[in-house]
């Protein structure tokens, strides 16, 4: 019961955040002076759409946004379109829909980011806890290394990795991994064994560049948590009882994990942003590259759809983390039930 109340309260906050995000997504681009459709058309013509196509876009948008109506009505139209899954038409690929472009790009991004987040988080926490417990040179080198890696922007590591492993240079006689793309140019996505093997070959570099940096960040956080835990009474008591190191480690790890779950929630937003830019470095066929193209082609509908999808994804991820937090930390349920 208490757990349900906790979830309801959380869900309410995220709903509020979603509404704010929708309002920002709708109104920010419309703060530009002038008729939004005219400025959109101006941008579309700059990006190479012509004559008939332009008139088509113009009529379509006047109708879709209901521009002769008030802002509030326009906003409601926008919401109504969203509910029906209608994200509009792309300028750059008129009359292709935005949804179809996103549908193509999204699996690549999810396939890249979800494993990177999960594996990076687990490995990073393990490294941090072990470093804190062991101390000595292992701690010093692991800490400094993690700090360096976590300070490194995702795309910086990506750029260096490409140069070191995927480009012909003085260190490597032959590039060992492909430098860009999600699969060999010329092939088209299918479920054949050869294609999957090819995708995996292209997967390594972007995956590694995300996961290594993420491990660094998590390890730094876990190390300070674990050092703090090492100073607590229960550890001293456990030591006095003669508990084995392994047992003590387990307790420390479990207690140190709690704040790390919150940390994960807070870092998902930054991680997603960083990962989008990493995709650009690798020309990976995901949402990041789509976003980059949309920005360079002034493809407003695609751009707005992507910002919306990123927001929704991050909100959902944060909500899931909060759910997990409520399950693993009994104090939260207790606090909700008013036991404290």
């Amino acid at each position, binding site marked *: 019961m208490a757990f349900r109340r906790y979830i309801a309260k959380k869900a309410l906050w995220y709903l509020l955040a979603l509404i*704010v995000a929708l309002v*920002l997504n709708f109104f920010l*681009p419309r703060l530009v002076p002038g008729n939004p459709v005219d400025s959109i058309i101006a941008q579309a013509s700059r990006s190479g759409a012509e004559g008939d196509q332009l008139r088509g876009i113009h009529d379509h948008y006047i109708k879709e946004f209901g521009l002769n109506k008030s802002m509030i009505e326009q906003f409601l139209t926008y919401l109504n379109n969203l509910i029906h899954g209608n994200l509009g038409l792309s300028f750059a690929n008129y009359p292709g829909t935005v949804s179809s472009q996103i549908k193509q790009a999204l699996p690549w991004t999810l396939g890249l980011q979800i494993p990177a987040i999960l594996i990076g988080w687990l490995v990073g926490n393990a490294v941090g806890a072990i470093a804190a417990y062991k101390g000595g040179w292992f701690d010093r080198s692991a800490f400094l290394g993690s700090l*360096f890696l976590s300070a490194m922007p995702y795309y910086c590591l990506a750029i260096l990795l490409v140069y070191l492993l995927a480009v012909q240079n003085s260190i490597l006689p032959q590039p060992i991994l492909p430098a860009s793309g999600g699969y060999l140019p010329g092939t088209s996505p299918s479920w054949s064994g050869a294609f999957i093997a090819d995708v995996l070959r292209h997967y390594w570099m972007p995956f590694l560049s995300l996961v290594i940096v993420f491990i660094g960040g998590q390890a730094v956080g876990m190390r300070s948590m674990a050092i703090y835990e090492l100073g607590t009474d229960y550890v001293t008591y456990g030591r006095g009882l003669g508990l084995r190191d392994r047992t003590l480690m387990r307790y420390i790890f479990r207690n140190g994990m709690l704040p790390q779950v919150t940390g994960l929630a*807070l870092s998902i937003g930054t991680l997603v942003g960083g990962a989008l830019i990493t995709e650009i470095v690798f020309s990976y066929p995901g949402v990041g590259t789509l976003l980059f193209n949309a920005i360079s082609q002034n493809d407003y509908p695609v751009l707005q759809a992507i*910002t919306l999808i*990123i927001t929704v994804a991050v909100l959902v991820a944060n909500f899931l983390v909060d759910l997990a937090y409520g399950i693993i*930390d009994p104090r939260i349920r207790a606090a909700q039930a008013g036991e404290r």
Partner: protein
Amino acid sequence: MKRLARFPGRFYLATFLITLIVLFGFLGPVVFSGHNANDVVGGLYDHPSGKAWLGTDNIGHDVFGELMYGTRASLEIGLLAGLLSTVVGTIIGVVAGYVGGMVDEMLMGLTNVLLTIPPIVILILILVSLNTSGTLVLAIVLASTAWTWTARAVRAQASSIRVREHIDVARLSGANTFGIMSLDVLPYMLSYIFMAFVLQVAGAILAEAGLALLGLRANGVSLGIMLHWSLAFEALRTGAWWAFVPPTVLLTLIAFGLLLLQSSLDEVFNPRLRRSRKVRRLAAATLSAPAVAPDPEEVAVRS
């Protein structure tokens, strides 16, 4: 000098790194006045030479000159945005934490909502709509998304300071709310706020670079803009390392230096993170809430 001796070795490494980079960005253009960002000194990706020490970029500009001015621009944006977001975050955090009640609920509600929306989304939406991207405008835009976590952290500190005795004394002696907040609450958090500021600067510099890489800042000179053009003109695949390695390394060093400074200061200000045997025993003896480590209960109650 005795107090200084307490700083960990990492502190000196960080200060050294940051000093070098700041000198390079601000004094570099004066010392190496022969190298400018906008001088065309060669063709497409010329190799490093006696004239252009780090070669040329895609339009024949001197990479070394660009690197100096780019470093300066990145530092300026970072400092300005970091300052703005720290000031705004601190004011909101202190007011929410000290005043409490409805004000606290509302300010922190706003903060928490903004905190969950990914900053890159807001930045993209604003920058796409804006036609200018001057240093000040960009700093304000960056700060508009970054102040939130400073506000949340400062609020947690302020609300714990509020219940200390010296605040009661100040209140009884008739000090007004503003006076108490600025003279009795704020000074206790200055070390903490400074650390948050250092992180904000690093965050702003990296955010600027990320936005430039997305192609939202094509004009001007900065480390991110250098990277953007080198990627757009295939420096990576043609092996023109001088076009992308220097800005990559500088960005990494700036971020690393600032993070290292923050973490070593953290250890100075927060003895619980130091791990001599004596301190550990002391910490075990006088156990109380950590000064900086997030408190799970606090987080749970807040959001």
